[in-house]
């Protein structure tokens, strides 16, 4: 039997000695889209960053496996080259480093060999065009002075260029206007195939109308408290997290 594409197995994550993710398990098969929804501070970004290996987050227990291989001991760059991708909630600006130089290095790293200049230009123009981004955009410094929406678009640009196996998208839909949301969603859909999987972190059901999830999970206090199909997102939109919070409280009290 082949192993699943991506497995999060009883994962526990701590930040500065405070445990934020409490035994979370999730399995992504090729071709799947999973959505994670949860209130502010429930641990969504902590989960996302720890999957990518941010040094500030400590894995206190459990495992993360990509194609059956544990990645917890891999540094972030190795995870990325293996096919893991994180679209950041707040992309970091790096003044002085141009997008065009950065993207070329990133693609070359992911491929394990230098991408030829001509192929790079072609690929870049194609993906830029798809996202309706100006060519001049890549002359700018990485995320430096980008508007909120431009930053999110730049993350999708990278998704399209790097072709990861598993893409974790941390609130990529936040801060986008209506047109941008559609364009970004199309970018995600163009990327998505039967060979890769997406973990979409969001607060809003809006994006799920474009990028249709196979599974929706509710995250509260670093745990998945409910999983379902796309209709769960509609329920959340209507009723909020209150019912689930009540339940976790009750569970905590009874344990």
């Amino acid at each position, binding site marked *: 039997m082949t192993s699943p594409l991506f497995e999060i197995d009883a994962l526990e994550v701590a930040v500065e000695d405070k445990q934020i993710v409490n035994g979370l398990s999730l399995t992504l098969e090729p071709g799947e889209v999973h959505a994670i929804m949860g209130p502010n501070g429930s641990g969504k970004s902590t989960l996302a960053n720890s999957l990518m290996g941010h040094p500030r987050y400590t894995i206190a227990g459990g495992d993360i496996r990509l194609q059956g291989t544990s990645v917890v001991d891999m540094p*972030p*760059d190795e995870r990325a080259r293996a096919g893991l*991708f994180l679209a950041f909630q707040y992309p970091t600006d790096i003044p*002085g480093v141009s997008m065009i*130089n*950065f993207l070329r290095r*990133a693609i070359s790293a992911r491929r394990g060999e230098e991408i030829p200049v001509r192929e790079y230009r072609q690929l870049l123009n194609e993906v830029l065009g798809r996202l309706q981004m100006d060519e001049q955009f890549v002359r700018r410094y990485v995320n430096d002075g980008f508007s909120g929406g431009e930053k999110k678009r730049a993350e999708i640009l990278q998704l399209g260029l790097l072709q990861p196996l598993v893409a974790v998208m941390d609130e990529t839909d936040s801060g986008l206007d209506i047109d941008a949301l559609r364009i970004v969603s199309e970018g995600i859909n163009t990327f998505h195939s039967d060979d890769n999987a997406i973990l979409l972190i969001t607060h809003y059901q809006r994006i799920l109308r474009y990028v249709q999830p196979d599974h929706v999970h509710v995250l509260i206090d670093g745990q998945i408290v409910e999983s379902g199909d796309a209709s769960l997102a509609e329920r959340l939109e209507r009723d909020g997290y209150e019912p689930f919070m009540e339940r976790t409280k009750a569970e905590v009290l009874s344990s």
Partner: protein
Amino acid sequence: MTTATLDAPSESDIKPDDLRAEVEALSRSKSEPDWLLAFRLASLEQALGMEWWTGQEESWRRTPRDRLPRRARVTDFRASVHNANGRVTRVPQHAFTPHAHSGLIHKYHGDIVATDIAEQAEADGIIVKPLSEAALEHPELVQQWLGAVGQPLDRYDAFGRAIWTQGVFIYAPRGVVLDESLFYLVTQDTAAGDHWHYTLVVAERESQLSLIDAGDADDRRADLDESPLIHASVELIAEDGAQLQFASVQRWHRQTAALSTTRGRVGRDASIRVTTAAFGADLDKQRIDLDLSQNGGFAEIRGLFVGDGKQHIEHVTRQHHKGVGATSDLLIRGVLTDESQAVQYGLIRIEPEGQKTSAHQTMRNLLLDDGAGADPIPMLEIEADDVKCSHAAAVGPVDPDQLFYLQARGIPPKVAERMVVRGFLAEIADGVPDEHMREVIDELVEIQLEPARSNS
């Protein structure tokens, strides 16, 4: 006294009478006019009457003074192994040889080995000449501007005006605008010992000139018995409405103690922009002093450095405002690896007349290793009440979030660090007026980072 240990072990061989005789012989050998000899001798007397330092001065307190020779000698370049019997045998390729220029002058073995000037620049009356020669051919100009920036700042600066073997005179007549930069290439004769450079740059009213002063060494691998001292006195004059850019890049022999004094006088609505990049010397101390006594002037100081080993890199600057509505800006960015150290002592001084001044300072130091350190000290002395001033100083490691972002895209940590560092310095390098020069600086940054990083 605790500062005593910082001082050089002994006062070395200053013999006033010998020096006077040597300076006179030097000047005569170049057939310099009497007034130039008089200028040298007067400067020499000033120097002889001064102390090197007491160690209490703000501008000297933080310098590892034990690494700075207290020495003033007229160098005998004929004794150098690179200069057999007083004949220049071979001029080594200079790392900064430009692709294009409006004028070029190259100094080696204490004298000028090449000069070149573009046709147009020559027709426009641009002067790029050895100072002794300019003094003979354009006495009225040289005499007018020699030492016009003011009294020497200290003993080194005073000696600097006296004992140079050959200086350089750069001049742009009124209204002339140069399209390409002028280049002053200096090759350090490592076997010869100390070098004293004297450079006088004058931009007449409404003219525009940019000068790139680039230092390289003829033998960077030589193992020297004694640390050479390189002192450069640079005097920049921008008359009313003129725009003068001066970029200095050096990679001297690693055992060198390099000291420079760059002074600028900014005329009414004129500008002086100074960019420096320090790479080579063991100790590099730059004094940059820009005087804005006229209304509406603009002065800019940009400094970039990458330190490794035990290098000490120091900037002592003054933005001196007296004119109304003048602007000045200082931006220093450095990267320190291994056990290298940096000091920035930057003073903004605004006299009571200096109303509507806008003066700013930013000093940022990136520390890449635990042993590295930096001490940025912005100072404000403000006597006018209607001014805008700001200062910011920072010392710290590379931002871990920036590193993580790059790593999350598959870029290995060492490469990511270098990208961030080069980006950090790019903002300064981008201000250098010549594209080829920017590329060279970028390469030097890379070279300087390479060995230091691969050790760890």
